[in-house]
């Protein structure tokens, strides 16, 4: 089995007009049948490896290369393109942008046609590939009618139909909700069992459901690998600090065990899965049940705002029996009701397509109100003008680019003030304050579109606060960001909340919900089926299942260890775990320092 299948020798890649090398003198080997995980911050060259492997660099994507990459001992650069693409199957991140045909079977056939597979043979191979990913019954379906998860499975089928020796998966689940992500990795595990010869190279950020099948991990930083690929536990053990620095998420149970060890506990080997963690930590638990202290109740994050005073004021957002459908389509919202108290940090979760964005759109009057009522700070939204609504509510779209209307960062921030005829001095002062608050001062003359992903997000949040809005609604604020940028953004939102702004965040990121949201509402099939304190949501397994939310690995571990608060709820973030092991709760938040991420 230990036959070297892929070997990179001193591979360097430089894109035209780029300032530096995307890969520098990279050497690594992959054994046939192995699963290799590529880790590294964005821009570290992970995707470039895939492009080289499939021969897309330099054939389709122009780039200068040095060194070589060998497939079964043959230089990939000398192989005919058709042969190389047939050897390496690719699955990409964006479910919308990897298909070119209209129906499922045509899409799978596409690759086979390009390889001039005879027509008689295609039928069988299409059926085979589709049944491997569980899409056989959708064979004649139109691609655009598939869900995000199904599209990614289709992408996998397209690659498998070409019978590749290697699969390269480039962040295949980053657009999927937690349960769908779990399903995709289960599928991958089943595939691994059925095809032990298949080599899998995968780039991923959220590792909890994946790490169990990974054989080795290669850490990339700035196009280099400072040590050879090793098994996951060793990498997390020896390079945990470096990974922290790079803003890479460890599996939650691994991160917990590592923190506890740094706090002085004798954790012999870093666990990867809930089962391993339960075994490793079992004998170290000091107390299985403790009282939920006041600070524990507030979870000690930066978000500490007394909620007692909020009851006397009208809620920031109040939605009552709201129903909505697009045109003559099915009901997207079905008598949804939600109340968000002023000054709270609220999250809205639910499976893809549950109507979360539709509900949020009603809060700023983007959609005409159907039956039901929406009140913002006590006033019926239908009685407010668009200007009055936008004075009260800032709405941050999922894609920050959609909101940009000016050519410079500072004009972007000034825009809403200028159209309201504020004086030049006022505008100037407000813009300067926002530039400073959001770490954008050095980019004031930059074009918004030229900013990095994290900067774009910060700018879009800042523009939504220019008018002094008291309510901020965010659609997937941390989408597509690494851990450092995500946490720095959340820290900013917490600071805003402390100044009295109400935050409502739509998100798929359950750890974020656990770490920051005081209260959470769950939207399933257009109805709010839960709203209340976040710990109660996570204590309710049936509800989590129904909402296609995965229980947090830390909560599964808590159950396995028999750890809980006296009221039956579970510790939410890593800091909450310390008292159970007889340790003092750390003062410092376990998120990476906020200051660093402003760069």
């Amino acid at each position, binding site marked *: 089995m230990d036959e070297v299948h892929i070997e990179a020798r001193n591979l360097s890649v430089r894109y035209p007009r780029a300032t530096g090398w995307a890969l520098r003198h990279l050497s690594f080997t992959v054994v046939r049948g192995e699963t290799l995980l590529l880790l590294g911050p964005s821009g570290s060259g992970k995707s470039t490896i895939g492009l080289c492997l499939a021969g897309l660099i330099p054939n389709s994507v122009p780039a200068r290369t040095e060194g070589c990459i060998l497939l079964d001992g043959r230089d990939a650069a000398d192989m005919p393109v058709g042969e190389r693409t047939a050897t390496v199957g690719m699955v990409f991140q964006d479910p919308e942008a990897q298909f070119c045909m209209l129906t499922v079977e045509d899409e799978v056939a596409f690759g086979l046609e390009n390889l*001039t597979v005879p027509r008689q043979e295609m039928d069988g191979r299409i059926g085979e590939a589709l049944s491997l990913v569980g899409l056989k019954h959708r064979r004649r379906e139109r691609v655009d009618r598939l869900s995000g998860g199904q599209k990614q499975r289709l992408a996998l089928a397209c690659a498998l139909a070409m019978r590749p020796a290697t699969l390269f998966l480039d962040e295949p689940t980053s657009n999927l909700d937690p349960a769908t992500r779990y399903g995709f990795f289960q599928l991958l595990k089943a595939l691994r069992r059925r095809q032990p010869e298949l080599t899998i190279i995968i780039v991923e950020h959220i590792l909890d459901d994946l790490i169990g099948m990974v054989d080795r991990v290669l850490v990339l930083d700035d196009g280099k690998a400072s040590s050879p690929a090793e098994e996951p536990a060793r990498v997390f053990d020896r390079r945990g600090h470096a990974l922290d620095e790079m803003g890479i998420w460890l599996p939650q149970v691994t991160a917990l065990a590592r923190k506890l060890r740094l706090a002085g506990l004798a954790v012999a080997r870093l666990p990867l899965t809930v089962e391993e963690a339960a075994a490793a930590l079992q004998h170290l638990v000091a107390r299985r049940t403790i009282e939920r202290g006041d600070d524990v109740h507030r979870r000690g994050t930066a978000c500490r705002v007394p909620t007692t005073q909020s009851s006397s004021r009208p809620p920031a957002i109040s939605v009552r029996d709201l129903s909505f459908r697009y045109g003559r389509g099915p009901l997207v919202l079905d008598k949804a009701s939600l109340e968000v108290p002023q000054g709270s940090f609220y999250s809205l979760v639910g499976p893809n397509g549950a109507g979360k964005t539709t509900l949020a759109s009603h809060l700023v009057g983007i959609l005409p109100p159907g039956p039901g009522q929406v009140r913002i700070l006590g006033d019926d939204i239908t009685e407010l003008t668009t200007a009055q609504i936008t004075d009260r509510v800032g709405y941050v779209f999922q894609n920050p680019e959609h909101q940009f209307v000016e050519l410079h960062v500072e004009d972007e921030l000034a825009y809403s003030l200028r159209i309201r005829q504020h004086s030049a001095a006022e505008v100037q002062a407000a813009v300067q304050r926002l530039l400073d608050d959001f770490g954008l001062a050095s980019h004031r003359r930059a074009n918004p579109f030229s900013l990095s992903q994290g900067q774009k997000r910060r700018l879009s949040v800042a523009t939504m606060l220019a008018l002094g809005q008291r309510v901020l609604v965010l659609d997937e604020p941390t989408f597509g960001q690494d851990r450092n940028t995500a946490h720095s953004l959340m820290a900013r939102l917490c600071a805003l909340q402390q100044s009295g702004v109400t935050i409502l965040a739509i998100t798929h990121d359950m750890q974020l919900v656990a770490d920051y949201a005081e209260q959470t509402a769950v939207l399933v099939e257009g109805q709010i089926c839960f709203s209340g304190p976040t710990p109660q949501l996570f204590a309710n397994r049936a509800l989590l299942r129904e909402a296609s939310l995965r229980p947090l690995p830390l909560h599964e571990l808590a159950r396995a260890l028999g750890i809980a608060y006296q009221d039956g709820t579970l510790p939410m973030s890593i800091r909450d775990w310390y008292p159970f092991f007889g340790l003092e709760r750390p003062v410092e938040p376990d998120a990476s320092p906020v200051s660093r991420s402003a760069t």
Partner: protein
Amino acid sequence: MNGLFSYYETDSFLHRRNPSLKLLSLMVLMLAVTMAFDPWTPTVFFVGALAVQCFLGRVPLRSLARPLLFFFALGALGFVSSNALFYAPPPGGSVAVLWQRGALRVTVEGLRVGVSLTIRMMAIVVFSMIFVTTTDPTDLVLSLIQHARFPFRLGYGILVAYRFLPLWQTELGIIRAAHRIRGVGERTTLRGRWEQLRRYAVPLLASAIRKSERVAIAMDSKAFGALPRRTYYRQVRVTWLDWAMLAGTILTTVLILLVLARAGLLIGYGVVPED
């Protein structure tokens, strides 16, 4: 997409026909109508086409009502009125004046040309609609590649673009909403509209370029264009019925023209009306 023209998914005689030969038949009809200048010929073709659409295409006429009304209004307002008022008789020809006030006058000849132009346009619209509503776009492109020597790289480019149209439509909707929240009003002045176009275009183009790059890489990763030749899973067939459709179209067209010429109603094709 629920635009004026889109594919109507059902099964019918016309739906089963080969797209390339259907396109050829369509061209025959268009040519026949374009060369006739009297109002009767396009009327016959127009009514005939509606019948074909209804019985051979199984597309409910209701769905044609909107586009037809649109073009009818356009024709009535544009062609009929302008020709009725401004018709210039050929040298030596005379005109019958129906109504006159000052320099404005309505002539019989002008009216006739205007009506004939309108009906001609309507007939051509119906022909195109028959084609679009009964032809699966994927089949059309595949048939053009397989039967009409259309280059496959270009063909697949068109297919991808077609796939992306509804996505961009959705995205434009989101951008408009996002800008409205920023307080950007929908502009009515010319300069305002230009400014607005730029504001919508930048994010839309940024995303279009990104998406198309991704699709291109995804297609290349499946060996698209790696070999000079490719095979096809979906074979678009040509059967004797397809040729029969073409032959039938030509025959019917000739027959209609002959009958009309006999009746002295046909103008054009070098046929001069009796005076």
